[in-house]
């Protein structure tokens, strides 16, 4: 982030500036001290390089521990222990019970070694170039989206005015790589998966965008940092003004969750790699490190979308209460991000997969109309911003009704004819 942007932000934020403690500024201070050792003309480049390296390092590790956390969480959801074997046997200074196992936390590194040392198999009939490019591009595209996420009060890699547009442009490119992978593999399962991926991206790009637009409408900006700033108020210093705590925001968040699940190919929308039908979908013909790259990209995409959800609806890096601001903002962001990911894992541990026609029908017949209604709802909310006193209650009631009634009615029509049944018995 360049310094002018920073000063601009600080000017907008008297409260925030006051709360900028030593910890809050620590990442920036570290960066600035490091950069000062170099000649001035190279400093801007170093600024960006440090951002990139920081994101790669932090989210690389985050990815690694997400995989092990997912496996352990899923294990516990399923009454198993999950991976708990991989450890660090040489670290003799650790207490005994940690020495050998370390709760399995070194599992991702063992996995990485395994993925790196596995043979890279490319089918003879495959389109070699595309087959190689797909995993490379998928990681590249999924990393691009991190550029506009505000990780903390002062931590945003690139301050863009149209950050949201950039985010969706970069994010939806990953689906193209899935198509590349599926097409290039010359495998029928991969091909089916590629087609599904395309159908899915076309269907879910729209509700994802439509669920975000109300935020833009109310906040009046496309900049992610400013959207977070717009949520930085508290009633009585306790109740945060996050968008999720408004009727349209809650609805928007739910729509966003569903669409994000679909965009990141997570259960229950993991159709492109539907294990029970398509073996591994577009990943069928990938092995070793290329497979690991796809895996990584999937988690990067999930993390980025979770980060966006945190930014747009959960107040970004804002603390939930005014007096909790002493905790650095980036920790709040990470905490919320972890919460989102845990929720995604929980959903994955519970739900089953939709069929492709049901998936698209859910999008076009349910999510898109509901998101459009929610857009009107947000417009109503923005127009009635001046209402106060008893009118405030009316505003809340109307807004809630505007979203709950269509949800119930459309939900009923969507699930028409499908209900648990009662059965007769013969004796």
């Amino acid at each position, binding site marked *: 982030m360049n310094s002018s942007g920073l000063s601009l932000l600080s000017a907008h934020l008297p409260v925030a500036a006051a709360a900028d403690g030593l910890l809050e500024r620590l990442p920036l201070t570290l960066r600035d001290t490091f950069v000062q050792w170099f000649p001035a003309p190279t400093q801007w480049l170093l600024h960006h390089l440090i951002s990139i390296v920081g994101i790669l390092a932090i989210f690389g590790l985050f990815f690694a521990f997400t995989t092990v956390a997912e496996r352990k969480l*899923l294990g516990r*959801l*399923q*009454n*198993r222990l999950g991976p708990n074997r991989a450890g660090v046997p040489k670290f003799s200074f650790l207490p005994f019970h940690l020495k050998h196992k370390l709760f399995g936390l070194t599992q991702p590194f063992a996995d990485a070694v395994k993925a790196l040392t596995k043979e890279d198999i490319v089918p003879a009939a495959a389109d070699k170039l595309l087959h190689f490019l797909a995993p490379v591009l998928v990681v590249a595209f999924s990393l691009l989206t991190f550029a506009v996420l505000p990780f903390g009060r002062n931590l945003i890699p690139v301050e863009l005015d149209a950050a949201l547009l950039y985010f969706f442009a970069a994010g939806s490119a990953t689906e193209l790589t899935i198509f590349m992978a599926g097409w290039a593999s010359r495998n*029928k*399962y991969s*091909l*089916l998966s590629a*087609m*599904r991926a395309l159908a899915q991206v076309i269907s879910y790009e729209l509700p994802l965008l439509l669920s975000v637009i109300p935020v833009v409408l109310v906040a009046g900006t496309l900049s992610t940092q400013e959207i977070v700033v717009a949520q930085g108020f508290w009633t009585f210093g306790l109740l945060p003004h996050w968008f999720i705590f408004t009727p349209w925001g809650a609805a928007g968040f739910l729509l966003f969750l569903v669409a994000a699940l679909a965009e990141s190919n997570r*259960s*229950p929308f*993991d159709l492109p790699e*539907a*294990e*029970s*039908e*398509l*073996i591994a979908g577009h990943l069928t013909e990938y092995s070793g490190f290329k497979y690991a790259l796809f895996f990584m990209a999937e988690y990067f995409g999930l993390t980025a979308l979770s980060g966006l959800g945190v930014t747009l609806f959960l107040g970004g890096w804002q603390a939930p209460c005014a007096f909790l601001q002493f905790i650095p903002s980036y920790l709040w962001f990470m905490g919320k991000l972890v919460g989102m990911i845990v929720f995604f894992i929980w959903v*994955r*541990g*519970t*739900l*089953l*997969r*939709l*069929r*492709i*026609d*049901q998936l698209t029908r859910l999008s076009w017949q349910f999510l898109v109309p509901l998101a459009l209604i929610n857009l009107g709802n947000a417009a109503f909310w923005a127009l009635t911003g001046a209402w106060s006193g008893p009118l405030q209650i009316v505003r809340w009631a109307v807004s809630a009704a505007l979203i709950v009634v269509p949800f119930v009615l459309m939900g009923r029509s969507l*699930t028409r*004819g*499908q*209900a*648990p*049944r009662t*059965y*007769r*018995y*013969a*004796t």
Partner: protein
Amino acid sequence: MSAADLSPFNSPFAAGTAGPSVRAVKDPFHGDLLEVSMGPQHPSTHGVFRMVVTLDGEIIVKLKPVFGYLHRNHEKIAENTSYLGSMPYTDRLDYLCSMTTNWAYALAVEKLAGQAVPDRAQYLRIIMAELTRLVNHSCLVGFLFNDLGTSFTPLLYAFREREKILDLFESLTGSRMMCNYQRFGGCRVDPTPEWLAAASRLVDNFPRFLDEYETMLTGNEIMLARTQGVGVLDAAKAVNAGITGPCLRASGYNYDVRKVDGYGFYPRFDFRVPLGAHGDTYDRYMMRVLEMRESVKILQQAFRDLPAGPIMDPKSKLRGFRPKAGEAYGRTESPKGELGFFLVSDGSPNPYRYRVRPPTLINLTLLEDMCLGHTIADSVVILGSIDIVLGEVDR
């Protein structure tokens, strides 16, 4: 059902072709059809089973099941082994329910030899068979949800309960799955009172698991959308194709060999047969759940009424067993359908002809009819709801 209007095949199968033919592609908006070989190595074919599927987009226009990847000629092995020696091999037919396969074989041999079975053994057989039904059905509903795309959660809950029953089997018979428990004229070991108490406690707690399981899944909207109206099986067609067991009853046809033949001591027990109305995958799933609840009832009655006494008929012979020349067909209601054994004796220690009537192979007869017009995702669910075990299909 009137037999006259039961035209053998409502599908183009009747026209003498090898199954429904691939739809002719005429309009330019439909491209080529895609032929996918699902299996023998596929996560959802429940073993080494193969479906050659022709797809139009994701819609199945043709499906041919291919068998034999696990064929070991079980029948030939049995014809070269003594009657007793085939008993452990029947464990491996349907490796999820060795107790019921054991019983079916013992039943056929007892019929062939005119062997009596003491009361206590009859009760024990029913206890084992119904415990096996719990094992099989809980496995099935778990696997079905895996086919539906859960990340193993329902399967592992089901396996957790199955594990407890398998522990019981292990402490009684010495083996978890390959029980080898039944003998001609009785059972091999007598359970202790502690074992019976533990089993009874387990059975009493089983409905709690079922309730939790149903809360989790039976009302789930995605589950309803995925299974209701999928793979509908018409009752008349099912009867003609020899579909038996829960698949038939899901179509609403009341036929349970436990009731019809009343083998063993089943007529002494009070239980009901759940019947479906639609014959779709959801009904087939619910039949399993409801049958488990009925099995719990049977088990509770069996534990209550279990008589004392010997577990083997004194006239039964372990070695040198030579039934008189003749033949017999014994059939039982195994958890998967009607399991029959057809035995021909020529008076020698080995059966002259030993034939297994495998329920799952015959239940697969209508797999294609059930899958046509559905998507590839549905085909694995339909296959899962039929409940096949390849050890039995291929023998």
